[in-house]
């Protein structure tokens, strides 16, 4: 049974470096002394913290609730005590911090009560909500909430479900090892997804440099005994594991940028995600750990099952980190990001901790001028003309860059990889993309402000007219009254009433001003009603007092 496979344009064949980390089985990483679990771990809204410092948590307890539908919950990876909920340096190239829950494990690793749900009896909507609350996100690296991807298109039935086991990045072997060791569980998760999406066929795409994984998956699929399910070995060529490229290779369908693949009748999930879905639904275990490849400048590259929140340096130490390490790269050498520090936590997106050293990844030779040789265009899997995008991005000609489809670029790095002038092309695209996003944000904010300003002017105008009408009506009334009463006192009263109100208001403001002045000058007025407050609130009040004192000093 030979499938017709399709080709995608371009691609490169870097050395894979995958052998050394596949010699040993997946190991469980030891429990670290402190887990730092960031709340923001997926595309979408930042989950709300559900725990406070000092609280005890159980393994699998929800510590961050999904913020709206485009978000995903976060759970305690083990039982222990919450030390703090505070911003911590995140596993991101920016070096910024994000609100994280710090958990000190108690070593008992005690699970919260678990109740697997009956899939066949539960409607798809409820399963999706359940997955959101179990924190299941795409584990291939993009961490898009899985429950959103399990929605079928309104216009087209989902014909094909693709399970992505291509794993094209050099050094990374976590999917490979997962498929070798836990194929039946992956197949189980895969069948759940097939059930939800109603897909006719399921294709598991695996690069042909992983024969053991192909065999293992084939055996598991055969054991499950389901129809319309096949494991396909695809040619090894980076970036065959890109979702769009894999869909193209297996089905011939090209999903354009910004479109939902379900609108084209296909959907694609990583094998790790399939495994996580199996755990979340069949075992009621939320996503609290994942398989991470530790490779590069280490004595024994290996795959570990790691709790989310484990500091990367502890993990690297287990694998025998060697001297000369200059940074950790999260992800592979083609698309990974350099971490701002060594102790950043492992997150749901961490498929690989690549320990970098100058000898492993030597500094790039100096950039030379582009000679328009077209090597990048030959390598680009999105059929772009990278050098044109480079000229436009470099010249900050963002409109033109977008015209040449900048946003179809998947930042796979093939162009930079082949460039004989050693130009860091992808950096220019990242720069141009984030500039364009910033501009769009500014534009949206400006448009909103303009609208609100216009509306306010309109409202003021309307209020003025209404007031004038009211006054006119009142005047007419008074005149009518005057005409009937023919007395003088009434008119005087009507004239003075507003003045009195104004005076009262002025007196109030004056009193407040006096109070404020007192506060500024003399001893601060002690806050009242503080007897029955919690220590937290008291601390807050102290903080406010301190702030006020600081403000006073500043103004003086």
């Amino acid at each position: 049974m030979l499938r017709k496979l399709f080709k995608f344009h371009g691609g490169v064949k870097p050395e894979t470096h995958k052998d050394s980390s596949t010699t040993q089985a997946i190991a469980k990483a030891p429990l670290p002394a402190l887990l730092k679990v960031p709340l923001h771990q997926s595309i979408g809204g930042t989950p709300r913290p559900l725990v406070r410092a000092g609280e005890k948590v159980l393994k699998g307890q929800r510590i961050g609730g999904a913020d709206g539908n485009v978000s995903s919950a976060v759970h305690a990876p083990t039982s222990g005590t919450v030390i703090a909920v505070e911003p911590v340096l995140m596993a991101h190239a920016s070096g910024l911090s994000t609100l994280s829950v710090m958990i000190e494990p108690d070593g008992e690793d005690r699970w919260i009560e678990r109740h697997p749900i009956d899939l066949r009896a539960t409607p798809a909507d409820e399963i999706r909500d359940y997955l959101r609350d179990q924190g299941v996100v795409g584990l291939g690296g993009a961490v898009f909430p899985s429950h959103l991807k399990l929605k079928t298109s309104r216009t087209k039935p989902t014909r094909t479900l693709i399970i992505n086991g291509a794993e094209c990045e050099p050094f990374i072997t976590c999917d490979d090892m997962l498929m070798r060791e836990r194929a039946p569980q992956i197949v189980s998760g895969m069948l759940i997804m097939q059930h939800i999406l109603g897909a006719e066929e399921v294709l598991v795409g695996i690069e042909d440099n992983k024969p053991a994984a192909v065999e293992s998956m084939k055996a598991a699929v055969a054991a499950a005994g389901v129809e319309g399910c096949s494991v396909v070995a695809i040619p090894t060529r980076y970036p065959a594991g890109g979702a769009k490229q894999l869909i193209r290779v297996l089905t011939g369908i090209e999903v354009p940028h910004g479109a939902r693949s379900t609108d084209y009748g296909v959907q694609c999930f990583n094998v790790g995600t399939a495994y996580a879905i199996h755990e979340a639904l069949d075992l009621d275990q939320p996503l609290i750990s994942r398989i991470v490849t530790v490779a590069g400048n280490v004595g024994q590259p290996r795959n570990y099952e790691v709790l989310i929140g484990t500091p990367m340096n502890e993990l690297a130490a287990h694998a025998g980190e060697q001297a000369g390490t200059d940074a950790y790269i999260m992800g592979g050498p083609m698309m990974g990001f350099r971490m701002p520090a060594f102790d950043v936590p492992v997150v749901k997106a961490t498929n690989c901790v690549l320990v970098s050293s100058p000898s492993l990844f030597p500094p790039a030779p100096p950039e030379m001028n582009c000679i328009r040789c077209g090597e990048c265009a030959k390598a680009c899997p999105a059929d772009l003309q990278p050098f044109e995008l480079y000229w436009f991005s470099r010249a900050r000609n963002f409109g033109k860059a977008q015209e040449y489809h900048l946003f179809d670029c998947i930042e796979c790095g093939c162009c930079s990889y082949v460039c004989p002038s050693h130009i860091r092309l992808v950096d220019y695209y990242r720069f141009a993309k984030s500039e364009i996003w910033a501009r769009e944000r500014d534009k949206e904010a400006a448009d909103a402000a303009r609208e609100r300003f216009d509306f306010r002017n309109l409202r003021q105008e309307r209020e003025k007219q209404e007031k004038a009408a009211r006054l006119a009506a009142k005047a007419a009334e008074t005149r009518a009254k005057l005409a009937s009463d023919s007395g003088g006192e009434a008119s005087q009263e009507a004239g003075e009433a507003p003045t009195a109100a104004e005076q009262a208001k002025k007196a109030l403001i004056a009193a407040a001003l006096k109070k404020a002045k007192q506060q500024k000058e003399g001893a601060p007025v002690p806050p009242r009603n503080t007897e029955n407050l919690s220590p937290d609130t008291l601390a807050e009040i102290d903080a406010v007092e301190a702030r006020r004192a600081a403000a006073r000093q500043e103004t003086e």
Partner: protein
Amino acid sequence: MLSALLVMTGIALVLGAALGFAAIHFKVEGDPLVEKIDSILPQTQCGQCGFPGCRPYADAIAQGEADINQCPPGGDEGVRKLADLLGREYKPLNEEHGVEKPKSVAFIDEQTCIGCTLCIQACPVDAIVGAAKQMHTIVAAECTGCELCLAPCPVDCISMQPIGETVETWKWRYPVIKIKQAA
């Protein structure tokens, strides 16, 4: 000679008619220039330019009554864009109207606020919520950072807080081209 004259006159007439037709049929409503200028302005509505809002300033620029370098929130980049649009020479921001500051939003110290509603009346974009004698607060997402609420506050409880960088707003830097002089 005569025929040449006739031909030229004929061409002139035909072209004139075509232009007249186009002027009537493809007429652009409104003043697109003012719209274009307005879309470059940051819509802070702060009035630092000396006009009561961004739109009036755009009108003034279009009519040549105001210079292009009077908008501090738009900054240097804004001046450049206006210069580009209008085909004028770039000039640095006029400091009489203020200097470019990092983007900020107003913040009300809720303990000090006396609920006088003066800031609510001053806010050009209705970004302050509150009622008389009740504490006020700023809707940070709608605040343009115009600082118009600072002056009216009788108890000085409003301060400007710079907006911090988040993962959503973080930007990749312009790639630095490092070529060392090899000699």
